[in-house]
């Protein structure tokens, strides 16, 4: 089916985009793991060998073979549901993002809303993961994520709506189309950093890794091992991939770019964003919850409003109203 255009039906679905999407997720998670190891090696001064590609597979294999452990009276069903939900919402969010021109699983008219909804559902997933173990430190991790999630996801909402203004549509395909002449990172420079911070928050990665922090001895995943731990870690990386691809589409012009085909540009842009997201973990330490709240509400939110105002002014200027 075709990409949505003016007057088009509510959803444009390309069914065979589903296996492509899953392929993108798998490749994206793998790339995230490799970038993580390379960044760690670069910062620590390790020698970089070919083992950086094989080690993650060995560790994954070992986790897969490790028998599960249990705490006292955990909530087994929710404990196993949590990683599945986490991966599920990440893939759901990615399904509304066009992977190249006119190619998305479901480029719905309200793509931004689906993305935001998926983002918020991560709160449920992470909370359940921490709560189900019936252990005190895991539970503290779960509650930390509720505070973290609420604070940072609000910022991403404003950033995304700002990007939707020039397109006059919430569909991500239309937002990409509206960047044909100028990318949103140029017209709304605050938007991308805000979305990236929200991405770090939703995947609780790097400076925002409070739920699974070292001071909680692993936090929500501290009582977990084996395939469950593997799926949880994969889930976090899926979320990073979703944000990388969504950022590329919404702020970096998506498939637009000279010479190379659309999918190549999307890949390059997503890769660049992924490198920034993943690499941040090795240079910026965890922010304590109180400082994080101050940053989010006293700095982040005003910046988000400013971003929205800038988006509005730029749109008006473009339309000749101002």
């Amino acid at each position, binding site marked *: 089916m075709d990409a949505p255009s003016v007057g088009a039906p509510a959803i444009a679905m390309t069914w065979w985009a589903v296996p492509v999407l899953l392929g993108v997720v798998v490749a994206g998670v793998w790339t995230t793991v490799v970038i993580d190891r390379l960044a760690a090696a670069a910062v620590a001064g390790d020698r970089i060998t070919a083992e950086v590609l094989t080690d993650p597979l060995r560790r994954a294999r070992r986790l897969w073979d490790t028998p599960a452990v249990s705490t006292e009276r955990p909530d087994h069903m929710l404990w196993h549901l949590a990683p599945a939900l986490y991966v599920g919402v990440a893939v759901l969010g990615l399904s509304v993002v066009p992977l190249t021109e006119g190619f998305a699983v479901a480029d719905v008219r309200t793509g931004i809303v689906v993305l935001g909804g998926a983002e918020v559902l991560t709160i449920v997933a992470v909370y359940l993961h921490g709560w189900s173990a019936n252990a005190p430190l895991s539970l503290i991790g779960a509650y930390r994520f509720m505070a973290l999630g609420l604070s940072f996801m609000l910022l991403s909402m404003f950033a995304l709506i700002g990007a939707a203004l020039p397109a006059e549509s919430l569909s991500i395909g239309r937002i990409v189309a509206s960047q044909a002449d100028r990318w949103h990172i140029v017209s709304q420079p605050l938007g991308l950093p805000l979305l990236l911070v929200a991405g770090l928050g939703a995947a609780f990665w790097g400076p925002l890794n409070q739920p699974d922090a*070292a*001071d909680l001895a692993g936090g929500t995943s501290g009582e977990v091992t084996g395939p469950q731990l593997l799926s949880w870690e994969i889930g976090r990386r899926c979320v990073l991939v979703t944000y990388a691809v969504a950022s590329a589409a919404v702020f970096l012009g998506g498939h637009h770019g000279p010479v190379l085909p659309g999918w190549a540009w999307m890949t390059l842009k997503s890769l660049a964003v992924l490198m920034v997201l993943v690499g941040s973990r090795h*240079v910026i330490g965890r922010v304590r919850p109180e400082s994080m709240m101050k940053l989010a509400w006293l700095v982040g939110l005003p910046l988000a409003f400013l971003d929205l105002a800038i988006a509005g002014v730029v749109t008006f200027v473009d339309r000749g109203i101002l």
Partner: protein
Amino acid sequence: MAVNVLVVAGGGARSAITRLLADERVRVIDSPRHADVMLVVGSVPVEFGPALRAVHDQLAAPRAVRWWTASPQQLPGIPHAASITGADPVPELRAALDDEPHGVLQPDEPPTEWRGEGPYGTGGEGMMGGTPYGRPMVMTGDDLRDGLALDPLSLTVGPLLSPLPTGLVLDVSLQGDVLVKVEVRDSPFANNPATWRGTEPPWTDLDSPPPLRDGRTVDVDISISELETWRVRHHLGSVARTLRLAGLDALARRTARMAVADPLPAPSRIRRLDGWLARVGLRGLLDGVAAIGPDTFTDGLIARAAGTAVDQRIDDPAYADLGFHVVTHGGGDALDRMRQRLSEAAQAVQLAGRAERRATSIDRAEGSHGPLADHADCGLRLLQALPSLLLGMEWGDAVTTIDSLDLDMSLMARARRTGSGVLN
């Protein structure tokens, strides 16, 4: 594949952890369930047995335990723990990945006897507390911060909770994640170190100050070069541990490498690290946490981080020769203490380089926390101040605070036992 290691630090183990942090074949983790192997390092009191067994049962299959010590005996509590006696534990740690699976060592029972207890025979007292089915019941209690009487949960934390120092045992009461009651319990290291099992791993212990390493007496002088080298390695090792707490594992490895490097790293490298960590790297975690004013501690590094210019080396003519000047920072919070450690490390590199054959005596030497001769007392005063420091803090800030005090429970116990502070 890097081996995930849960480290239990016994006597003489500080430098072991620094070396492990510096090694890319090993990943030091905090949760027993993520560990491939539990590595006990150094000498261990028998009193650690129950705690070791409890953590052993939480390990992921195959529940491999290794004991890195110079003279192997049976590890208290865990009969199947094999010993590692060489200088490089990693090959044997890797071999531990293929251990035969071990079963749990403790019966799966709640901590308190409950059968037949209480008015209903279940251990509880109806709605009003007790220990139903052997677990403490959460009750309402006064709240410190906003008056909302939530559910205080009483826990005993330690002695093997990573990333707290090994051997630290706290009785805490948590409301949510806020500490509303904190008491320091006797550490398992409290008994006579002569009775501890095993000995230090086999290399020059980087983290013990020189007098504790050799069997020296009060009258013999300490080489300034040795003392300042020890200071560099000690402080860089502390910062490496803080970096791991902050999730910066790669930077921790880099810093730990600087700590074990021979020759010592250049002061400019240390200052560059300090600049990044103070501005960005550790700012989010440490800034504003646990501000200890100059009246609370009047000695040593913590006082210097609070702005007080107090240092044994000020009055020492040998140091005056070397152009020593006191470094201080204002504020006294955890970030200032980290910066103080890095600044003193950078300065110590220069002092060690210029020292040549100069020497000082033990009663004039400055240790890592205060006067070297008072090492044990400094540590004990910190422990005594812990409850008032931690009360009302969130869990994360409490762990950060404890980490910023740089406690070594086993070293304090040994120093205390040998009488006047530090001597053997």
